[in-house]
């Protein structure tokens, strides 16, 4: 186990190097000059050149990358070109909000999705099953903006149960987490349903039934834990997605997460921020997947780590 984790961390380092290299190559290829954006419209060619030199943008690729990695090794993510702030400071200020929303969203997804999936599997072939299927597809296909504004309008503006956006208390978290939960729960519902159906067909469930175990005991004691295996992998995936990919929901709810920072930086080629966010979300993905791989054997002891 320890050896396995150590090996995975070693591999994680390789992944981070790989992803930083790939991102750096992409940024190098982008035909847009950050110096020109910094210099503004009234700048002379001389000024632009000067800024390019200061930022090291004229250096050969390997030297630029080398410098970046050297600074990274010292824990320096650089300073944003356009925000003029340390990238580490920008990310640190937004990371807690992103992590909180991620946790809230995953809880909502699981609550809604697993319930829907379980009910659909147990009522297989009935109108309940069919309606839940349609609901899942509607959720997955709905635009974030529409669901977000609708929830905000009903529960915050009309009913006044929650604040109209913002960050700080638990009440601020409910609506954005619920929005993401609704959007993502379709995946969990469909996966849970199909996984449950698979498990319910297995012989050991029949055996358990035959032994005279009560229905719900079989269900929650044997069937659900076995069905939940692929769900664990999906949570790992979601961690990566929620780290830097929530742009619209953050804007609708005024949630100070990393998504908006990343989106703006990508559109304006703010290299230090793009690098920083990519690395941080890569870390989250690597950790998320590692945890998913570690949890799997706990649920299904037949799986061996190797």
């Amino acid at each position, binding site marked *: 186990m320890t050896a396995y984790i150590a090996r995975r961390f070693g591999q994680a380092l390789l992944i981070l190097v790989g992803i930083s290299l790939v991102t750096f190559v992409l940024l190098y290829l982008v035909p847009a000059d950050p110096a020109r954006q*910094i210099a503004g419209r009234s700048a002379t060619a001389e000024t632009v050149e000067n800024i390019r030199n*200061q930022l090291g943008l004229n250096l050969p690729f390997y030297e630029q990358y080398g410098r970046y990695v050297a600074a990274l090794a010292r824990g320096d993510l650089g300073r944003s070109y356009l925000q003029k702030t340390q990238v580490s400071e920008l990310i640190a*200020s937004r990371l807690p909000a992103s992590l909180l929303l991620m946790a809230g969203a995953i809880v909502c997804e699981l609550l809604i999705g697993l319930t829907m999936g379980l009910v659909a599997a147990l009522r297989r072939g009935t109108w309940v099953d069919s309606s839940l299927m349609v609901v899942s597809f509607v959720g997955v296909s709905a635009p974030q903006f529409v669901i977000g504004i609708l929830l905000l309008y009903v529960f915050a503006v009309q009913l006044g149960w929650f604040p109209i956006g913002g960050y700080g208390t638990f009440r601020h978290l409910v609506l954005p987490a619920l929005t993401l939960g609704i959007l993502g729960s379709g995946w969990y519902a469909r996966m849970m349903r199909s996984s449950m159906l698979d498990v319910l067909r297995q012989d050991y469930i029949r055996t358990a039934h035959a032994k005279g175990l009560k229905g719900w005991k079989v269900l929650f004691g044997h069937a659900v834990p076995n069905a939940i295996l692929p769900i664990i992998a999906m949570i790992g995936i979601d961690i990566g997605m929620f780290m830097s990919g929530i742009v619209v929901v953050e804007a609708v709810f005024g949630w100070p997460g990393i998504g908006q920072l990343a989106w703006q930086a990508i*559109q*304006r080629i703010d290299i230090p921020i793009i690098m920083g966010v990519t690395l941080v979300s890569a870390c989250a993905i690597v950790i998320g997947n590692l945890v998913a791989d570690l949890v799997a054997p706990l649920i299904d002891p037949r799986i061996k780590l190797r």
Partner: protein
Amino acid sequence: MRNALLAGVAAAALLTAIAPSFAQEEKQGGSMIVTYKDDVSTLDPAIGYDWQNWSMIKSLFDGLMDYEPGTSTLKPDLAESYTISPDGLTYTFVLHKGVKFHNGREMTAEDVKYSLDRVTNPVTQSPGAGFFGSIDGFAAMADGTATSLSGVTVVDPYTVQIKLSRPDATFLHVVALNFASVVPKEAVDEFGADFGKHPVGTGAFSLAEWTLGQKLVFKRNPDYWKPGVPKLDEIDFEVGQDPTVALLRLQKGEVDIPGDGIPPAQFLQVKDDPTYAPLIIEGGQLQTGYITLNVHTPPLDNVDVRKAINMAINKDRIVQIVNGRAIVANQPLPPSMPGYAPDYKGYVYDVEGAKALLAKAGLPDGFTTELYVYNTDPNPRIAQAIQQDLSAIGITAEIKSLAQANVIEAGGNGSAPMIWSGGMGWIADFPDPSNFYGPILGCAGAAEGGWNWSKYCNEDLDAKATAADSITDPAKKTEREQAWRDIYLAIMDDAPWVPVFNEQRFTIRSENMGGPDALFVDPVHVPVNYDYVFAKNVQ
């Protein structure tokens, strides 16, 4: 130029040049909440150059010159008075005594000099450095051989003298720009590159609190040197909020000014609602939306083709598409800019005439070209309307709808045949006709990487522009305006642009905000003049 990320909300100049009367004394007190979608990047006056921070910086800092609130009329600010030498080359500013920075120290002529040295020093990376090109010694600063402007001298603690290397009629506007704000050296030294997060100025407000990515709090500067200003005790800026939600919050009384304005999707609904219609104030804006036609890309290098394109665009339809939030333009300058030619008819919409011109140019069957556009709404829609108009005269324009950085790059390196300027367009830095020339229509901007995306360069007009800007005698103001008017009409003869419209500005504010309408469509302070608006609930 500031990048108005939402062109639909960008905004403004003043149709009434009458200075509002501030004679009636409103009580100080109260607060207001302003929201923005995008984060505030920096409050360093040498660097800040975007939609959100431009007027915030104006409330934290002061410069030698400023404008009468709600107007575009220049007035001395930190300078008590100024004199200009007869040759127009030497400006002497006498400073107000007893003006204090937020850190309590008195502001002196040394600070003025330091601030100008700082903004022109390449190490500062100021996007506004180029404005100071007429100051003696600027070239030595730009190439790094000097660290101090030789043209700026401290005569005594309250007098500073600035020598120019060439006459510059816009110089008083230049020292009214944010970039010329006076900053204290010790604070810059203390915070270094983070000065923009810890701004110290002489302005009406000081920064009390900044939670990155969420909120900024401005508190009234109790020692402000202008009596009775500002009116509000506190301004809260909340960032990261979608304009649609900001509007909902305004309707609930939680927001006073949605800084990004009314989102396009809600505009008609809000405008036609009797509850909200009285809260909207409309004004002009020193802005022009245009299509650049690259004069080096065949067949756009043929002036008849460019004229044909000018005649093919149905500008009324485009104004209709943006729900009437603009007025049709026919020349580069917006109507409220001095030098605008009110009698000029421009190229009138005439499909048959356009076809005839194309035929004359040897292209009766039209041609295929590309139209670049910044990808935020409503710009791709406007581009599609342009595309349809062009197809009516046989021109096939393929749209390339891209992120801002990509469009700016394609414009700068000359690879884009046509660009719709929306969302990246020119909002004047100061109300003077010369501001629409140099970087976007003059030869200087036509170089590789420059912002003159038509790559139009007319040496003759460049000489005329320099001559016009050398007319520094205030008595010859109309002569100078006429010179600029001629320049812009001459440009239109060469048709490197299709001027499409001038955006109108619509500011919505809560019922609690008071003050003359002009303050809410202030041509210099966008969205509103923070220093002079007041809260009705404390009156």
